[in-house]
C-alpha cells in the first residue's frame, strides 16, 4: 500500500471517531438538560399547595388529661397542640377559658367541679369562619 493511502485511512478513521464521540456527548448533555427542566417544573407545581395545606389541616390534639380520667384535685392541667395563631376555647359547666394560641402547644390550668366534668375544647383557626376543631373529654373529680 502506498504511504499516502495509509495516511488517508488513519486520518479518516481518526476524524470519524472524533465526530462520533462529539455527537454522542452532545446528545447525552441535551437529554440531561431536558430531564432537569421537567423535574423543576413538577417541583414548582407541587411545592406551594403542599406547604399551604400542611399548616391549615393540623388536627387539634389533646395530650392531657385522658378521657374518663379520675383525679382527686380541684384543678387539672390541659395540654394540647393546635394551629399557631388559632383561638382556643375551653368550656365546661362551670367555666369558659379563652386562649390566643401563639405557639402550636398550649397549656391551661382549669378548675373542676365535684363529680363529672364535661370539657369541650375548640380551636378556631386563624379567624377563618369555618367549623372549629373540637375535642370533648370527661374528667371526674372524686374524693374517695
Amino acid at each position, binding site marked *: 500500500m502506498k504511504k499516502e493511502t495509509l495516511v488517508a485511512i488513519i486520518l479518516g478513521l481518526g476524524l470519524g471517531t472524533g465526530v462520533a464521540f462529539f455527537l454522542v456527548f452532545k446528545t447525552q448533555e441535551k437529554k440531561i438538560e431536558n430531564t432537569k427542566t421537567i423535574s423543576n417544573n413538577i417541583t414548582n407545581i407541587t411545592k406551594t399547595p403542599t406547604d399551604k395545606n400542611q399548616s391549615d389541616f393540623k388536627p387539634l390534639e389533646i395530650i392531657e388529661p385522658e378521657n374518663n380520667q379520675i383525679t382527686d384535685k380541684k384543678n387539672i392541667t390541659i395540654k394540647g397542640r393546635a394551629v399557631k395563631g388559632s383561638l382556643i376555647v375551653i*368550656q365546661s359547666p362551670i367555666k369558659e377559658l379563652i386562649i390566643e394560641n401563639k405557639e402550636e402547644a398550649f397549656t391551661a390550668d382549669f378548675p373542676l367541679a365535684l*363529680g*363529672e366534668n364535661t370539657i369541650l375544647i375548640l380551636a378556631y383557626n386563624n379567624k377563618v369562619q369555618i367549623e372549629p376543631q373540637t375535642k370533648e373529654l*370527661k374528667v*371526674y373529680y*372524686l*374524693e374517695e
Partner: protein
Amino acid sequence: MKKSVFTISMFIFIALSFTTVLAQDEDATSPADIVTPSITESISNENIQDFKDNLASKFAELNKNKKAAAGFITEIKDNKIKIKTNENSNLDIKIDPDLTKIYNIEQSGLKELKMTDLKNSAYIIVVGLPLENTINANYIYQDKPFVVKSGKIVEVSKSDYSLKVTTTDKDDYTLDVESSTKQQIMNIKTLEVGRVGFSKIKEGDTIHFSFALKESNAENNRYSVTRFLIIPQEYF
C-alpha cells in the same frame, strides 16, 4: 555436639520451669472460691429486683385501669345495676354490700347513700375494675349530668327570652335564658370575657353553652341554659 545441644536444652527447660513456679502468687485462691459467693449474692439480688419490678408493674396496671364509667340506670336487681353509658353502650355494675360505697354529689360535698336510695333513670359515676362489660364497683356516685355544646345562633326570641341554636354536630336546641343564667361575651379586640345583656345577642353569633341534662326534655330539645359565652360574628 549432640551432647552439648542436649545439655543446653535441658538447662533452658529447667530455667523456664523454675521461673514458672516462682511466678505463682501465694495469696491466690481457687476459681471455685472466687465465683461461688458472688453468684449466690447476684442471684438473690436479681430475685429481689424482679419481685420489686413485678410489684411496681402490677400497681401501675391497676392504677391505669382506674377510670370512671358513667351513665343512666336502666335496671336495678339484687346487687346488680345496669347502666346505659354516654357512648350508648350497656354496662353491668356488680355491687358488694360490704365493700361498695355509694354517695350523692351535692354542692356541699358527698353524702353517703344506701343501695335502696338509687332509682331508675338516676345518673351515676362508677369507679372500679372493669372486666369486659362488667365493673366490680368500689365506689358509686350519684350526680347530675351536664351537656356542653357550641354552635351558631339562628334565632333570637325577645318575647320569651329564648335562643334557637344549631350546634357544630348539626343538632338544634332551644335555650331558655333565665335570670340565673350566666351570660357572657368575648371582647373581639382584647379577648376578655365580660357580662352581656340579652338585647346585645345577635343571630349569626357563635355561642358556647351548657345545661343540665334531663331525660324529660330529650324530645323537644328545649333546655334552661345555665351559662353561655358569645363570640361575636365580627371577630371572624
